[in-house]
């Protein structure tokens, strides 16, 4: 069995994220890393393999992104994935969800043709785009059942059951492999790479694919053919400094309530 885990290289959320002049996300000038939310997906892939001891399970980490995005795959290999794939091509830059999901789906199909893809694992959202749509789009393109936003995952044979929080309820979802599965940050803390893991990662197979390896043309993806167009980006004006009081002898509560009244909240 082969598990493909989709990992995205994203600008660090704690850095000053910004846009390029063409309104695409600056993925080069700002420090990047493996999206923290995709670490949870890697962790669940590894646990899946570990729980099913005795079965021949391999984990392939897949990313679509610029040169530096290979770091996301490397981190996944350090955590314990067996092999990596980095899809990189200048023509992909600026792709929207339709373009990105197309490239990912083609790459997954290629992995599938080589070694199978019984489980496609994703994070719940990328920390830059926050769309939470790519897993569903992959399921649509690959014709696989989608089982998304799992907080608890159980599997037996080819059956997978998950628990998830929905708007007003908790749900149990069941499906038969192969599936596309996305996991939330409630699914369990991701492991840190060990020293041994970091050393071992250097010897693991890591392939680089371009669009032509996937049978795609430059005209099918990228900014110029995106189905959506960004017209402007504006930095939020800094909030004007608020009034801060220190609570001495119980004065804080009074000041707080006066403020609420002045703003007509009471």
């Amino acid at each position, binding site marked *: 069995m082969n598990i493909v885990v989709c990992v995205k290289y994203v600008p660090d*959320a704690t850095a000053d994220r910004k846009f390029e002049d063409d309104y695409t996300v600056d993925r080069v000038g700002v420090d990047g890393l493996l999206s923290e939310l995709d670490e949870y997906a890697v962790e669940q892939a590894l646990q899946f393999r570990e729980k099913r001891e005795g079965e021949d399970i391999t984990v392939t980490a897949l990313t679509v992104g610029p040169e530096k995005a290979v770091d996301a795959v490397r981190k996944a290999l350090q955590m314990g994935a067996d092999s990596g794939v980095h899809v990189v091509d200048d023509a992909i830059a600026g792709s929207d969800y339709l373009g990105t999901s197309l490239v990912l789906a083609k790459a997954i199909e290629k992995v599938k043709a080589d070694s199978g893809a019984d489980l496609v694992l994703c994070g719940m959202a990328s920390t830059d785009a926050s769309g939470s749509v*790519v897993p569903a*789009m992959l399921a649509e393109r690959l014709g696989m059942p989608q089982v998304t936003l799992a907080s608890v995952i159980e599997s037996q044979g080819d059956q997978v059951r998950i628990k998830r929080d929905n708007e007003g309820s908790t*749900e149990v979802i*069941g499906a038969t492999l192969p599936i596309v599965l996305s996991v939330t940050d409630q699914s369990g803390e991701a492991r840190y790479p060990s020293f041994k893991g970091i050393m071992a990662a250097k010897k693991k197979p890591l392939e680089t694919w371009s669009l032509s390896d996937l049978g795609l043309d430059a005209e099918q993806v990228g900014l110029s053919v995106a189905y959506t167009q960004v017209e402007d980006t*504006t930095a939020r004006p800094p909030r004007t400094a608020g009034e*801060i009081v*220190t609570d001495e002898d119980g004065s*804080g509560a009074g000041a707080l309530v006066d403020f609420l009244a002045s703003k007509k909240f009471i």
Partner: protein
Amino acid sequence: MSEVLVVIDHADGEVKKPTFELLTIARRLGEPSAVFFGSPEQGDAVAEKVKKYGAAKVYVVDDAQIKGYLVAPKAEALQQLAEKTSPAAILLPSTFENKEVAGRLAIKLGSGLITDAVDVADDGTTTQSVFAGNYTVQAKVTHGTPIITVKPNSAAPEEAEGAGTVEAFAATVSDAAKTAQIVATQPRQSTGRPELTEAAIVVSGGRGTGGNFEPVEGFADSLGAAVGASRAAVDSGWMPHAFQVGQTGKTVSPQLYVANGISGAIQHRAGMQTSKTIIAVNKDPEAPIFELVDFGVVGDLHTVLPAATEKVKERKG
């Protein structure tokens, strides 16, 4: 005028407020047609509600055959409805489920997709709040039927009389769409407080509560507010995940947000930074949350909040 499909957000036939906001927005783009996935028996009552906000038509899609499955059947039904009506746009309330429906629909229709809009202008230009609320982005769908998911509190619902003509729509759902099965559903107990994402006021607690949410809840109730929590409070098991505000919880954009014992990490800000007025109570004057506030109290929430609760009650009489 072209139709604009608006997917109704409801809980067992009870139409939720974001639906009225969406209908209001839809009127800028064309003539709203509401889409109800639910039981046909509830169709007429739902139509009565949505026609007050300008719905000319109400397509009722019987969900008996599809509600046991995840997302895919709804995308198929909407595809068929879109092919029949050639709408000017398709608007959905921005829930996780609807975003996934929208994603699949975008592929089926070959249409551009915009998620989590906080505004949509007459010409279809959307506004999104990105990078934890640090940037706003103006964008537009350039190919196909614009598919836009819109966040709660993005517009003030405005009434307008619509015909509200009910039309049953028989969708054909393929077996391939019925592969991920909802095996069990457990509704969450209602707290009796306003819904987090829809509330005008949200009062939240973090690690600084030390696990005692009573001061937070008491203050929330005095203001008629919803209660929220930071991830630290959720991870500690003090509050259920459904109350989490932030990147991996709910995004709220109320008139007033009160953060208590919350430091103001970027992932928390991502869920509350667009609130109109922000107040914080924190005993650390250096807490980053104070950079955001309109008003802040440096103090212990366990003394400030109960005292403030009393004073609010006194004022309200």
